[in-house]
């Protein structure tokens, strides 16, 4: 059955009369605030303020309150001494694997699965991931995140991405695993590859940030600066080298609104739970495997093999090779291991940057493999070039500044 054109218009009029209400539009305060947060002149200072708040709350809660305030004391004063007392035979292999160094007086330096592994997972990563996802969810549900995406669109187009790439980037600061999955939101293969590669190389995860905050609080700013510079430089190079398109997108910007706390709690629970199910087994298994590799001499052999490259090209002590090799399993633990090695502050900055840009951790590796083995191989090839070139560049900058 077909409806004649006149009748169709009558029907449209009827529906419009019943559903559309007319009035005078008056711009509200919320509308203007929304516009001001998108315009670059006012939006960029506001974005700087919001990111300041994000980082400040993150470090105060995860660093000062939970980890330093309670977890360090709980693990170092109660858990570690108890475990060292009850575990039989400190010279046994099992003691080395699960408790670690019998003379250690803190969980960071013990390197056992039940000492360092549990401390990193529960004492460092849990508070960091919890507060990170809470802040992220509030930004998302208040309507600020789409505005940040719009604001960043022009900048990100210069490295072959568009504004919504900000979401995997921010997620990556929590954990690279959901961030790699979030790259599916990007339009083209080129964009997905660039984002995945940059995530794997230049975005440190929440666990790593938490440990860095604890181990190198004075130099973390320099490490982040090198990572941001590397992100921009290699992003630009990749966008020029990788074939493919970078289309414009339309971003739907919702009104600002107060987040609904039911939703915030649900999202926070799901994300924290998801992270724990994915990452915690890797933390514990990672520590165990690193200890096995140390015990069997594999890491020592690799360290001897790679030492000339690390000492002459990257300018870091020979002893850092072990943690750098182990970083494949857990980057956060590798940073903790670095803290026990004597070196200059600049060597520490170089080593931590190298750990960050070095091979992605096993969990990220597995998720990247799920996205396609060709992409993974290409990302690893890009990564090898970046580590070699950027590591050498940082050493050269240090030589020029007279600090390396």
């Amino acid at each position, binding site marked *: 059955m077909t409806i004649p054109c006149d009748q169709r218009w009558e029907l449209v009029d009827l529906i419009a009369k019943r559903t559309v209400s007319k009035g005078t539009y008056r711009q*509200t*305060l919320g509308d203007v605030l929304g516009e001001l947060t998108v315009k670059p002149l*006012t939006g960029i200072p506001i974005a*700087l*303020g919001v990111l*300041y708040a994000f980082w400040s709350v993150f470090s105060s*809660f995860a660093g000062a309150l939970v980890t*330093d305030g309670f977890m360090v004391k709980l693990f170092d*004063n109660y858990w570690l001494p108890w475990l060292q007392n009850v575990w039989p035979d400190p010279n046994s292999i099992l003691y080395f694997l699960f408790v670690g160094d019998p003379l250690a007086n803190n969980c960071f330096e013990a390197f056992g699965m039940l000492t360092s592994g549990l401390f990193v997972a529960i004492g460092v990563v849990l508070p960091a991931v919890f507060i990170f996802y809470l802040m992220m969810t509030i930004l998302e549900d208040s309507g600020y995140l789409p505005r940040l995406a719009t604001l960043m669109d022009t900048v990100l187009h210069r490295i072959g991405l568009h504004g919504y790439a900000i979401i995997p980037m921010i997620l990556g600061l929590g954990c690279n695993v959901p961030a790699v999955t979030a790259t599916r939101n990007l339009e083209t293969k080129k964009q997905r590859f660039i984002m995945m590669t940059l995530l794997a190389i230049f975005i440190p995860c929440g666990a790593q940030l938490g440990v860095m905050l604890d181990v190198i609080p004075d130099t973390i700013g320099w490490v982040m600066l090198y990572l941001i510079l590397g992100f921009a430089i290699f992003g630009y190079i990749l966008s020029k080298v990788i074939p493919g398109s970078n289309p414009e997108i339309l971003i739907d910007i919702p009104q600002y609104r107060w987040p609904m706390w039911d939703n915030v709690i649900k999202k926070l629970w799901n994300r924290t739970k998801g992270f724990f199910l994915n990452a915690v087994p890797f933390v514990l298994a990672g520590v165990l495997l690193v200890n096995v590799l140390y015990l069997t001499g594999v890491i020592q052999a690799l360290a001897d093999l790679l030492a000339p490259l690390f000492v002459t090209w990257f300018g870091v002590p020979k002893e850092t090779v072990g943690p750098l090799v182990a970083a494949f399993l857990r980057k956060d633990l590798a940073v903790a291991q670095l803290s026990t090695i004597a070196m200059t502050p600049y060597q520490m900055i170089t080593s931590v940057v190298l750990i960050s840009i070095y091979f992605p951790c096993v969990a990220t590796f597995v998720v990247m493999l799920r996205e396609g083995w060709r992409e993974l191989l290409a990302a690893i090839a890009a990564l090898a070039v970046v580590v070699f070139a950027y590591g050498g560049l940082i050493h050269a900058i240090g030589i020029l500044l007279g600090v390396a």
Partner: protein
Amino acid sequence: MKEQISLTTIYVALLGSVALAFGIADILVWAGVLNSIEIGILTIGGDDFFRWAWGGLVLTFGGILMLSGAQNIYQLQQFSKAFLGAVMVWIIAFTDIFATVCENIPAGEETPAFFNSLYGFFSGFLPPYTPAVLLLPFTFLLAYGVYTWNSDESKRDLPDE
């Protein structure tokens, strides 16, 4: 009415100027151009890049936004700018207060107790204070402006002079 409007403009402009001066002072002290400042209950000082350089920059932008919104403040666009300037001051002030709360809940390394005493907790809030914390109560006028904005439609788009 005319005098009242001018007073608001002057108040916000003054507040913006002070925030701008404090923000610049934060950055200069961090950069080592000025020595750390401690006058009465005010303290500016520290080599922490994040808190004093980045935080100082945010405070500076807050001051600039308040200054640019001070003129014709009863216009929606202008008021919104000034309000965002106040929000920037709130960000620094509330994160400073939050940091103090987080640092003072645990007992500290030297004692086996986990929680700080009530006296120890509150003594963490004694002066001196950072510039943003001192500016905080003075910026609440702009929050009150937001509260009254919707209920007082007649003020909208009213020219300053």
